[in-house]
């Protein structure tokens, strides 16, 4: 399959995803919308597989990986009681966050294979995209785990307030930006993992001050974050399907969180900033 045919098929799957979201936003068409989304996913996966070619050594591994992951995911989703749905969605988010971090790590260690430069000489632009994708992915990963634990009742739904948490969060955010800058200049693998580490800590700290009642909004927000992470990875890989889908999910997730906040009569800003207005939060 030529690259232009692949790019076209990615476009088709992107359109199917848009139609899926459109369908999902109306009660009568929602199930069809979901099905269209699955169709788009199938097209994207098959296209990528065919692009790689069955002659390739990793082909079997990919098929096994998809079957394994897909099988486990489907079985868990089938068996889980209806009441445990929100935490399951949160758990799925954490998977996407982790996958984004892993893909960025793979690109960092084998840049030639991804066409983004050579080891020690990765294009600055690719490093920026990679670092952003990684940081957002890592925040999504730990943030979703905390959301999962809170929703599942394994962790108290009460907001956990650290003293000076805003100072700590801002400190972490600043150090994250600095580290990304250092990463772009030095391309040090150590700094890459420091970025991951700081982002993981930030994910935990951002979510623990949020009360159980606000969790659905948080899950939706994390949904948006992982969309942006996927788009960041898409830029690194030069993959149009990832860019389109990531941006689509990122923005729709953000606006959905906003609508949900308004529906619950909560301030969007205070929910996002992690318990900023926690004095009014119903824990």
């Amino acid at each position, binding site marked *: 399959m030529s690259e232009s045919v692949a790019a076209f098929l990615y476009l088709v799957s992107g359109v199917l995803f848009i139609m899926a979201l459109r369908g999902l936003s109306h009660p009568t068409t929602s199930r069809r919308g979901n099905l269209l989304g699955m169709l788009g996913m199938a097209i994207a996966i098959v296209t990528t597989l065919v692009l790689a070619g069955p002659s390739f050594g990793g082909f079997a591994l990919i098929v096994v990986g998809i079957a394994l992951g897909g099988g486990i995911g489907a079985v868990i989703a089938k068996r889980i009681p209806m009441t445990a749905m929100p935490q399951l969605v949160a758990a*799925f988010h954490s998977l*996407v966050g982790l996958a984004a971090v892993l893909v960025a790590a793979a690109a960092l260690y084998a840049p030639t294979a991804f066409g983004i430069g050579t080891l020690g000489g990765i294009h600055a632009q690719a490093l920026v995209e990679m670092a952003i994708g990684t940081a957002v992915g890592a925040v999504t990963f730990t943030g979703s785990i905390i959301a999962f634990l809170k929703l599942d009742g394994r962790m108290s739904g009460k907001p956990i307030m650290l003293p000076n948490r805003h100072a700590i969060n801002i400190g972490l955010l600043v150090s994250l930006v600095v580290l990304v800058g250092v990463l772009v200049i030095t391309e040090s693998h150590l700094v890459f993992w420091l970025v991951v580490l700081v982002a993981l800590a930030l994910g935990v700290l951002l979510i623990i001050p949020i009360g159980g009642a606000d969790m659905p909004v948080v899950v939706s927000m994390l949904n948006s974050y992982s969309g942006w992470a996927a788009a960041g990875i898409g830029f690194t890989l030069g993959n149009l399907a990832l860019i389109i889908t990531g941006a689509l999910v990122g*923005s729709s997730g953000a*606006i959905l969180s906003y609508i949900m906040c308004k529906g619950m009569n909560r301030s969007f800003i205070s929910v996002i900033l992690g318990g900023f207005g926690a004095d009014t939060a119903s824990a």
Partner: protein
Amino acid sequence: MELDLSMSWLIGLYLFMLAAFTGYEVIRRVPSILHTPLMSGSNFIHGIVVVGAMHALFNADTALGQLIGFIGVVLGAGNAAGGYVVTDRMLAMFKPSQSGKNDKE
């Protein structure tokens, strides 16, 4: 893509912006009853990250790289398949009427 780097980056940015606005417009008027299924549905859609993980796997030149890619593929596929099934189950609850909650299943 065969375009040079800066050009393909710019095209990526174009697509990014357009897709972001599309997402906003498509979701803007969703009724509140569909918030949760929609969240779940868009969750399954960004299982698309599996495509990135597949790239990572077939571009890997070391065992470690292959392992990283393989785990990424498993996670992404798990999210895609699981998210689809969960969303479908949620939506099945609405099935009989257009908006009334019905716990038949």
